[in-house]
Every structure is written in structure tokens, then in C-alpha cells.
């Protein structure tokens, strides 16, 4: 008990927080009450569901990695340097956030599709993106990236730059400063951003179906499977959603735990 005691947070704050939590928890509970627990095992282990779940996990993980690879540099450039056109870049990064996912899918088609902006050149290289797992990953990356960039940039702006200056006077090149000072400092925010991206990618539906289509094992992710299932049996769609939710919670808490010692 001799660690610095956490300061009290104001007690009234628990009231809105509890209200907010209830607002989130109640619908989830309501869903649970509708799940047909007897059918659940069969449903989950059905080949369609299993394949879709694995595909979802695979594509979302890769999409999250891509978000990190491209999004962290973007956040750093937005939050730690000044250049002309920075405000434009900041707005552009936000756009996929508001684009209805289906429209995002159309935009991707217009770009990487067979008759799209780059489609011809890609086809010349023998690259066919349409109806492939690659398309799923691209759709997920497109919609998920802004979450990482925006949340990380916010954290970078909240944190000062004094340690980075110290590192520079110790002879650290910008790369070293970034790797050993900046990133460790905002690690929790990188983690949050990655969680947001992963979750967004995992739940992605509209852009995927528009840009990549829906074929079992190749492009039909769990959300797509859930939508199809819903046409037949809404309750089992809900059960499948619960699977998605549980898997997501597991993956995220696992990632959190492994990231903590770093």
C-alpha cells in the first residue's frame, strides 16, 4: 500500500458513467436472452460459420497490421511535424470515417477494380484484386485506418515534446527518437488505436460486400455470414454475432496483455 495512491475521481462521475455503461450493457443482455443456447454449438461449429470466423480473424489482423504500418507514420507526421498541406491531409484522413461503407466500397472499386483508375495497370501486372481475400483486407484497411490515425494524433498532441528534445541532444537520430522515446510514450494510445482499428475491421460489412463480394472461404467474413444468416433465421444471426463479440473481446484482451510489458 505504499505506492502513490491514485487520487480520487469525483464520485458524481460514476453516475453518468454507470448510465453510459447500462446503455451499452442492456442491449447486449437483451441479445443474450434471445440466444437459443441449445442450437448454439451446432451453429458455431457449422462449416460456414467456422470458415467465416477464421477468415475474419485473418483479414482483420492483417488489416490492423497495415493500419499500424501506414497509420502510425501518418499520425506522427500530423502530430509532430509541420508542412504545407497538413490541414488538407488531416481532413482527407478523416473522410473514410464518414463515407457510408458501401460508398467506400464503390470508391475502392472505382480505383482498384477492373475498370478502375489503377485497374488497367494492375491487370497488366497480372494482379487481380476483385473477389479476392486481398480485396477484403483492402476494404477493411480503408475503413479502419482513420481510427488509428485520429486517435493516435490526439494522444501525440496531448503529450509534450520535451523528452524528444532531450533524446536529440543525446545524439539520437530522428528514427531513434521515434522508436525509443516517442512511440513508448504513446504506446497506450497506439494500443487503443489498434484496438479500434481491429474492431472496425472485424465488424466491417458494407465496403467488403461492395468491393470484394461474398464467397465462402474467400471473401465471406463473419459479418457477411451473419447478414445472410439473418435472412433465414434472425435469432441464429444474433447468436453468431455473440461469437464475433466474444472472439473480439478475447483477441483484444490478449493483445493488451502481451503489449503491456513492452
Amino acid at each position, binding site marked *: 500500500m505504499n505506492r502513490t495512491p491514485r487520487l480520487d475521481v469525483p464520485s458524481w462521475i460514476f453516475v453518468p458513467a454507470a448510465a453510459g455503461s447500462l446503455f451499452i450493457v442492456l442491449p447486449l443482455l437483451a441479445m443474450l436472452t434471445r440466444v437459443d443456447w441449445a442450437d448454439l454449438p451446432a451453429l458455431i461449429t457449422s462449416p460456414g460459420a467456422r470458415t467465416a470466423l477464421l477468415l475474419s480473424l485473418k483479414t482483420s489482423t492483417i488489416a490492423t497490421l497495415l493500419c499500424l504500418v501506414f497509420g502510425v507514420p501518418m499520425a506522427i507526421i500530423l502530430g509532430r511535424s509541420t508542412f504545407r498541406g497538413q490541414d488538407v491531409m488531416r481532413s482527407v484522413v478523416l473522410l473514410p470515417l464518414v463515407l457510408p461503407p458501401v460508398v467506400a466500397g464503390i470508391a475502392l472499386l472505382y480505383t482498384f477494380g477492373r475498370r478502375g483508375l489503377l485497374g488497367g495497370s494492375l491487370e497488366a501486372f497480372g494482379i487481380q484484386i476483385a473477389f479476392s481475400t486481398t480485396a477484403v483486407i483492402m476494404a477493411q484497411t480503408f475503413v479502419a485506418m482513420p481510427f488509428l490515425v485520429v486517435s493516435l494524433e490526439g494522444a501525440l498532441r496531448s503529450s509534450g515534446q*520535451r*523528452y524528444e*528534445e*532531450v*533524446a*536529440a*541532444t*543525446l*545524439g*539520437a*537520430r*530522428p528514427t*531513434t*527518437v521515434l522508436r*525509443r*522515446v516517442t512511440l*513508448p*510514450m504513446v504506446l497506450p494510445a497506439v494500443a487503443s488505436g489498434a484496438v479500434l482499428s481491429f474492431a472496425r475491421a472485424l465488424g466491417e460489412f458494407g465496403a467488403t460486400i461492395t468491393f470484394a463480394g461474398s464467397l465462402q472461404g474467400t471473401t465471406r467474413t463473419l459479418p457477411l455470414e451473419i447478414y445472410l444468416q439473418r435472412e433465414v433465421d434472425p435469432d441464429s444471426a444474433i447468436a453468431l454475432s455473440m461469437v464475433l463479440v466474444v472472439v473480439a473481446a478475447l483477441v483484444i484482451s490478449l493483445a493488451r496483455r502481451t503489449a503491456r510489458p513492452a
Partner: protein
Amino acid sequence: MSLTFRAAVKDRDLDVSLEVPHGRTLGLIGANGSGKSSVLAVLAGLVRADSGTAVLDGEELFSARVWVPPHRRRIGLLAQDSLLFPRMSVVDNVAFGPRSQGLSRPAARAVAQHWLIEVDAADLADRKPSELSGGQQQRVALARALATQPHLLLLDEPLSATDVGMAAMMRQTLRRVLAGRTAVIVTHHVLDAVLLCDRVAVLEAGRVVETGRTEEVFRRPRSDFAASISGLNMVRGVATGPDSLVATDGTVIHGEPDMALTPGDPALAVFRPEAVSVHRSAPGGSPRNQFLGPVTSIEPQAHLVRIQVGDLGADITADSVARLAIDVGESVVLVIKAAEVSLYHG
């Protein structure tokens, strides 16, 4: 092979030029806010000067056309706050510089261990900075700055949080480290300056008002700040003869000139508070310097008592104070033998 520096920073009202010969240490002294840290920040590349230039070992650090970024200046800066990297252990903090210079992890750690031993902090190696006391943090930060083996070392009040005993040790360490190294040290302590610096520069309001060999500046100060930090009384005036001056208030002071003064030239008189005696009324006798005035304060010092009369201070024993039975506001006469007063051209 040396440092030449001239820079102006408008919004800090700074306009300073300095030179440090290769391998020498310059002390930078001056009141709070006089611009000492700003000079170091400009040198280290953390603040841009509006104009000016700096050349270190023949290489331009900045000028109207050139801008070497901080990490390529090979300048080590110990800032006024320790700013240890909070997420690294102490040894990793110290190893950061060597690592950045390309040393392998074990080699950098070995270097770090060496410097931790130098600052007597080897036993703290595995702690996190938040688990250190203020003085311990400062020592570790010093080790971190030293471990980069920079071409130019900038230390901003390196011993301000260090306890008396440890400070004595650290001064020895710094003396060893600074030998042959070009360095600038900011300090508020005469002892640091005397022991570590070949020359000192005195800053006032962003301008250099005095520079010189360290002992020279403290024994024959020309600026008010140098006089006050040396604990000396100083009176400015105009020479009236080879060994006397007249102060602005008309008092004439006799003393021992370093060289015969030229009447009419500006001159300075300097004497130690311990050499001043205090009387209730003017004592008789041969040529002596006397100042009359009301006591403005009476303060115990470590072993003596400081009687302040306007700008002048007299240190006398507690016994004498009791015998004189003086109090603040009462008029006294301060008396200083001419032999105790140094006179020199101002």
C-alpha cells in the same frame, strides 16, 4: 578548434557572443532570467536564434544559411530539469546516448555502468526514474549527458539538487571529465565556477556584461552580479588620485590600487564584508574609509552576523552585535582599512 558563438533571440531579449577555446571550460553566471539557459538551448539547437552564428571545431552549427539539427551537433546538454526518460531504467537512460551513437547494447551498458560509477549511482542502475530522489535524478542525468562524450558539453546548474558532500565529490568528477574538453557550465555557485571554469562570463538581461579569468572576475568583479555572487562589497566611482576614488554619493574611498589609477577614469573599490567593522560613532585615528548610514538588516550567517547598511554588508561576530546593541534603523558607521580595499580601473 574551439567554439565561437554569437546569437540574438528577439523574444527573449537575448544578444550574446561568447568564445570558448578548445578544451577549456567557460562558466556562465547571472541572475535568474538573465539568459543562461537560453544560450545553452540555442547552442544545442533547441531554440533558433533570429540571427547569429556558431562555429564548433571549424564546423558551422547554425547561421543564416546553415542549420545542423540537434542530434548531429555532437553537443551534450544537461538541462536544468533532469528529464530522465520515465519508461527506461536508470542504466538504460545513461546508455541511451552511446546506443544512439551506434554502440551495441552490451557495450552501451558497459559505458553506462562506468558513468554511473563516476556519479556514485551504480546501485541505482535498475530503478525507474520515478523511484529516485531529486538529487539522485540529477546525478543520473549528469551521467547521461557525460556518457555521450560530446565535442561540446553544456551543463545547466549540474549540482543544484546535489547535497553538500556529494557536490564536493561531483566537482572532483567533473574536473576529471572536463579536463581537455570544451564545455560551458551554468552555475549559481562560486565554488563550482572556481573549481571547474577557466573563464566566466556574466550575463545581465541577455547581454554579456563581463568576462574574464575566473579568479580575476571573482576577486576583481566589474559587474554587480559578480560582486554579489563573490560576496564582496563593491563601490563604483571616479578615480580622484592614484589610490582613491569618489563614489557617486560623494564618499571618498582610499585603497590599494592594482595599478595607479588615472584621476578622472572610472574606478571600482571592492572589499570583503569580514574586513568591515561596525561602530556606533566614527572612531578617531589615521586615514580610514568610513560610511555612515542606518542599518537596513541584521541577519545571522553560518558563523557570523551580517549587518547590512544600504548596499554594503559587514560581517561581525554575534558577540560584537550584542556589545554594540544595534538594531535595524539605527545609524552606524562602517569602517574599512584602506589596506583591505582593492581599487582598480572600472
